[in-house]
């Protein structure tokens, strides 16, 4: 048994040595993201592939391994394969379920790889070398600030939430803290699962239930699109406005056109995956020091700055 262990240990050392030697001329970066199960993750897949294509032409010595997984076990298997069979030097990962994946990602780190975590915080600190994320509490706070400013005398609002996961809670808490002390009343909040059809259903029922709604916070543009149809069906588009989030092209277009129903949006771009891949690549290729936390602002997008965020080629 002991012999086997020491054999394995020496194999690992030998492996990492050759890995280090190889890394001098050829670098492999693994990129693992969740499958495109809604609009935002669809954007993540698109921007990841776009960044990989661009960087692969710029740096012929960098090889990328890309994998997209529908659930945590598959994503764990993906990164294990990347380490054991593809010999990656660095991992860029957007963990679908960060709590379930923390220990698997830690193993990659323990094997001496450079680890970049995107968007979702792992359950223990200090695993990743680099953390790139959007500002979830800020997304809530910016939406709250806009609604507070637009309704100086207060008023009734409803909230359509995402899925019951930490990101949603951070956004919700940020929002509730933001409207504290104002005369804004939250009539109710329900989960709409970051999904158009559910956004439509929940909004229809809110409209049935509440005769007076001044604003709707959906915190996601997919939900907004469903809610918009429900509001139009009820013929109440003159009574309220919607604040979404994420920066979907369709909504940005409406914001740019000065649509009264969607006057603003709050950015939370899936392009953050591209930022993470770029930073990781420049670290491996150019030796640039990138360790740390990069939080991309959740900017309020209005009619004035919407043009900066428009990108007709984006599928999101």
């Amino acid at each position, binding site marked *: 048994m002991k012999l086997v262990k020491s054999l394995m240990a020496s194999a690992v050392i030998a492996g990492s040595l050759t890995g280090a030697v190889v890394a001098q001329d050829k670098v492999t970066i693994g990129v693992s993201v969740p499958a495109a199960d809604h609009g935002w993750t669809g954007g993540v897949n698109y921007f990841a592939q776009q960044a990989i294509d661009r960087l692969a032409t710029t740096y012929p010595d960098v090889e990328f391994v890309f994998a997209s997984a529908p659930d945590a076990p598959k994503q764990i298997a993906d990164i294990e394969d990347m380490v054991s069979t593809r010999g990656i030097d660095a991992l860029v990962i957007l963990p679908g379920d960060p709590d379930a994946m923390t220990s698997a990602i830690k193993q990659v780190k323990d094997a001496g790889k450079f680890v970049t975590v995107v968007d979702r915080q792992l359950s223990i600190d200090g695993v990743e070398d680099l953390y790139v994320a959007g500002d979830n509490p800020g997304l809530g706070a910016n939406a709250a600030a806009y609604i507070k400013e637009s309704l100086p005398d207060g008023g009734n609002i409803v909230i359509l939430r995402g899925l019951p996961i930490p990101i949603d809670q951070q956004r919700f808490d940020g929002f509730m803290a933001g409207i504290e002390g104002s005369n804004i009343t939250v009539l109710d*909040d329900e989960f709409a699962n970051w999904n158009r059809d559910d956004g439509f*259903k929940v909004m229809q029922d809110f409209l*049935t239930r509440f005769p007076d709604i001044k604003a709707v916070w959906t915190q996601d543009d997919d939900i907004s699109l469903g809610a918009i149809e429900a509001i139009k069906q009820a013929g109440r588009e003159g009574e309220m406005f919607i604040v979404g989030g994420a920066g979907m092209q369709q909504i940005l277009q409406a914001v740019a056109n000065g649509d009264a129903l969607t006057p603003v949006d709050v950015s939370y771009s899936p392009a953050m995956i591209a930022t993470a891949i770029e930073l990781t690549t420049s670290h491996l290729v150019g030796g640039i020091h990138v360790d740390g936390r990069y939080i991309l602002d959740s900017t309020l997008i209005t009619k004035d700055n919407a043009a900066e965020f428009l990108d007709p080629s984006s*599928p999101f």
Partner: protein
Amino acid sequence: MSVSAPDIPAKPKRGFRLDLKTVGPLLALALLVLLGISLNENFLSYNNLTNVLARSSFIGIIAIGATFVITAGGLDLSVGSMAAVIAGVMIMVMNWLIPTMGIGWGVVIAGMATGILLGGVAGVFNGTMITRGRIEAFIVTLGTMGIFRSLVTFLADGGTLSLNFQVADVYRPVYYAGLLGVPWPIIVFALVAIGGEVVMRYTAFGRYCAAIGSNEQVARYSSINVDNVRLLTYILQGVLVGVAVLLYVPRLGSASSTTGVLWELEAIAGVIIGGTTLKGGYGRIWGTVVGVVILGLIGNILNLQSLISPYLNGAFQGVIIILAVLLQRGRKNA
């Protein structure tokens, strides 16, 4: 629907006792309606009722197809993904036809025809694999469920397929408008339900489905063409998914990988709540309609109240579903 009570087969006992198997789903529906009324005064408003029924019509139409499939001892898990891919292709076809046909009903009708045709083709594929390929229905439709879901993700490039804005405006009334104030989805749902009830009860096809589901060998010896009848149930299911999608697309004018997620489970749940047996042999279309409406009302009621934490929505749904079935099965052996 008045024909429902007298000719239910295999009554548990003769005599005075209320036949729970028949009234069970209706009782559950009545209780749910009472709960709704007590929670919100707008529950019985015309707008709320048409909202809920129109929303339920997609699942309802699909569930009527599923009633035939399940009665004949089969299962189709692919309907949700099938709906998504049909919606996606319909949108692509309509967008593609605009330059040649211009904006108008022509494009929409071509899109609708595509939808029905695709549904039929998908049904033929499922049915052929099951009846001629001799593969378990569960496996075939689990496979096509994955295939259809990936196809729509691929076609949409991971994002969302959106119908051209002007065509969407032409198509919109199909979901939002109606006849004498009753939205089209509800009318179509009702027509499909009535047609389904007639086919299930008064045609040879309906009786063959029940015969095959209760005992395939006996059905075969009775010179029923088991394979063809089964194949037909899957084709019918596919076509009805197509019909449901025709009504779904004008609602939001888009399709993505999230379209129709878990519709298969909702449809199957609706069928079972309505009193059809999951192992086949006995099917009841009007029950399926009640089952689907129950499911629709549960979601509606949850949104109309704030007593139950939204974290517990799933639990509430689960309790109601189990209760609804318990009401009709509970005293069967008493």
